[in-house]
């Protein structure tokens, strides 16, 4: 039996009929067609599927699509605005916070939730805040730096009323 589900994904409304057992991550990838949210495990350990559900970080493999009825979802595809990378995306680029990039969307979404709760996290708070995400490539060193640098940029840009300073591409 199919169930109606209506969601807002990255600001756009979607209505579909889905199986009750369809996982939210598969709904996003296979039904809505946004493949930036990844699947890295089957036991909710890796965090590659992390998205925001009404502003809260959620591993989208732990929810059914029908449970997202009426909710506002943000995926990695919704982070850049007007062709400009989100400061977290920019920071991961600047600080070499990714290698294969498979874990990256999940990290960026989890980090965006962390910074929304705690705009100035210490190194330790970053570690605690992102311990639900696994990366096999980076040893996490540059991911920590990326989040620190994004926090700085976001606080700075708030202070400067949204003025955006693009980091130099070469140094």
């Amino acid at each position, binding site marked *: 039996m199919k169930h109606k589900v209506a969601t807002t994904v990255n600001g756009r409304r979607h209505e579909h009929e889905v*199986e009750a*057992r*369809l996982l939210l991550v*598969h709904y996003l*990838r*296979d039904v809505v067609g*946004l*493949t*930036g*949210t*990844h*699947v*890295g*495990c*089957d*036991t909710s*350990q*890796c965090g*590659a599927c992390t998205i925001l559900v009404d502003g809260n970080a959620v591993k989208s493999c732990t929810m059914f699509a029908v449970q997202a009825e009426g909710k506002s979802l943000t*995926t*990695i*595809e919704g*982070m*850049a605005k007007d062709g400009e*990378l989100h400061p977290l*995306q920019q920071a*991961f*680029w*600047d600080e*070499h916070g*990714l*290698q*294969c*990039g*498979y*874990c*990256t*969307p999940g990290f*960026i979404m989890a980090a965006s939730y962390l910074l929304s709760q705690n705009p100035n996290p210490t*190194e330790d708070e*970053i*570690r*605690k805040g*992102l*311990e639900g*995400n*696994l*990366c*096999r*490539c*980076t*040893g*996490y*060193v*540059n*991911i*920590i730096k990326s989040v620190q640098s994004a926090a700085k940029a976001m606080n700075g840009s708030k202070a400067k009323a949204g003025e955006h300073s693009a980091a130099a*591409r*070469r*140094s």
Partner: protein
Amino acid sequence: MAITTMIGAKIHRREDPRLVSGEGRYIDDFTRPGTLFLSVVRSPHAHARIKSIDITAATKAPGVVAIYTHKDFAKVIAGTMPAAPAFVAEKKQIPPRFPIADKEVAYQGEPVAVVLTETKYQSTDAANLIEVDYEPLPAVMDLEHALDANAPKAHSNAPDNVGWDLTYIPEDANVMKEADVVVKQRILQQRLAPTPMEPRGVLAEYSRPDASMTIWMSSQNPHFIRLFLAGALGIPETRIRVISPDVGGGFGSKISPYSEDYLVPAAAKLSGRPVKWIETRTESIQTTTHGRGQYFDVEAGAKKDGTLVALKVTQYLDIGAYVGTFGAFQACACLLSTGAYNWKHVSARTVGILTNRVPTDPYRGAGRPEATHLCERMIDLLAEAIQMDPAAIRRKNFITEFPHTSHFGLVYDSGEYEKAMDKAMEIAGYEKLRREQEEARKKGRYLGIGISSWIEICGFGPSAGTAPATGGIALVESAQVRVFPTGSVTVYVGTHSHGQGHDTTFPQIVADTLGVPYDMIELRHGDTAEGPAFGYGTYGSRSLAVGGMAVHKASKKIVDKARKLAAHIFEAAEEDVEFDQGHFYVKGSPDKRKALGEIAFASFGAGLPEGMEHGLEAVAYYDPSNFVWPFGTHIAVVEVDAETGAVDLQRYIAVDDCGNVINPMIVDGQIHGGIAQGIAQALFEEVVYDDDTGQMKTGTLTDYMIPTMNEFPLFELDRTVTPSPTNELGVKGIGEAGTIASSAAVINAICDALSPFGIKHVDMPASPDRLWNQIKASRGASHNGKEARK
């Protein structure tokens, strides 16, 4: 050659904007119209006879289009899966391996049947309805006793469990007598699951009218896969196209062909529909090849003054149920076991043992982490035995003359081992750490400092050395450089980037060689329909030292042709034409110059010199003259809680030397990731099977302990630069270095911390449980000792 500007620069990766935006395209992001989903029914037993397979119920399940078993695949797949000689030319036995089991299964997870359905979820539902009747057989799970006469056999029709038994250098019983002290140690290398964050996956589409096959898969070397599939499927290479798009990590586990790489295309051919299979994480841990899985019996002797005398190594390697395609590669642990040191005598033997576990194959470092680990452990054990500082014994025995020919005939190209160690000790503040350690011990706190001076053979490799190892295909590398009429450049390479940043670093090389702006150069890889006829892939830290050189060589061919054309345009002799930073001019008149782009445009026009072909493009195959030999020293600082056995890794210092550096940011990133994987082996990860049933007990990420962000300090990195004399760029590899060095540094630090307890050796993973038991046992022992003296 143009003046270096881009080589050595910290250029941010051009692939990143796409990847941070969710626009990477990994295997599961591809689909074709009418795609069927494939699920694999796998053996739940480590070893069993298949009595019957009943598909009646599954056939009626919703969405089922086809169910195939061995008899169906036998019609479209020929031969058996390959097992390369690697470092063991002669094997005692190679159990024939077909991609799907027929009458007998030999490891948990071996494919038995596949089901094809209209939707993803239906395929799992239907797979659960297939009834396989098994007769369980005794399984070989105990490596130590697998060669006993009464041991069960991994394959019921096999004579025994010996895959190979090869002595590289025989033992001379007399040589140990030259030593003042001899230490003996058994060293375990637990099985590891490579666990790239993206599991494997295959999508295949067969065109009946064209008799052609297109395959998308997550692979480190699509050309080799095409070669293997051409043979197995009976389709010429011209009609097989393998595309390996963005790949979410490989670490060696996406080199060899897997069962599904054959079954999915074959199912597409049988069903006439595109077929897709995506590995679950549980399947990945269970059936993707494992790394390590060995133990070593090692004996080492030294003089009282620290001079190394003799090393004797025997490797026992758990092959698994079948010989992995490059499974025997890990025997190179024997060949590298002497490490960075001069040893007077060496002997080495490798024994490969068949068991009922998933096959082992290369995993980041592959044989070289094992070599470093055993060598660096033995050096510390010797230092302890003669009461010498671990740094001092290393310093005394480092190889200092290069090129250096090892006991095994390998030629180390260059190195300055002491310099790297000194730098690491300086950053660590070694002397101060030793003082802190002493103070801490007085207060009952156990600090430990561990040194690991590593070397590595990489950059596979010269044709003479590698063609015999693969069974014929030399691991050279290819590149094609095409210059378009307006001077923009596309470069096609046979390597495959899956995190290593080639899209950025290879154009850096081309920019310097051609003097063309970096932004005008594109790199393409991962599609066998493009570029040279064959590419060799990315593994063994070879991409830069071999692939980067192929790119460089092809670029130089471009310059050579362009120079001829420029001379013609200038009406000058070729030898009078200079090339500097992308411009040609006649000696003495640098103001009348022409950019390479202008020459490119001219190469498509009229009035070329007599006999010159149009266009400006070149293909190059680069065959290195030797392997390359990076090195370095890592230092770990730990504190062990003697009450709980918990290890606090406080600092980690790495000074590495990979010759000239193309992009320091990317090199550091590779080292970070490598260190993390070696620490993960030292402290956390282990694939555990139940010894009786052969069932895997660590089949999910809940039980298989991939470290999180909480487990590592921020690594402190520095480097020395000793250019490689092997290639013109002076480069060596760095992809595996961190992993090769780090397990030994951490374990040496733990052993150092626990030396007050008389603990000399700790096996991996050094879990709190393992350490607590060792500490407890040693406390018990010393307590009993006191009792005895009373």
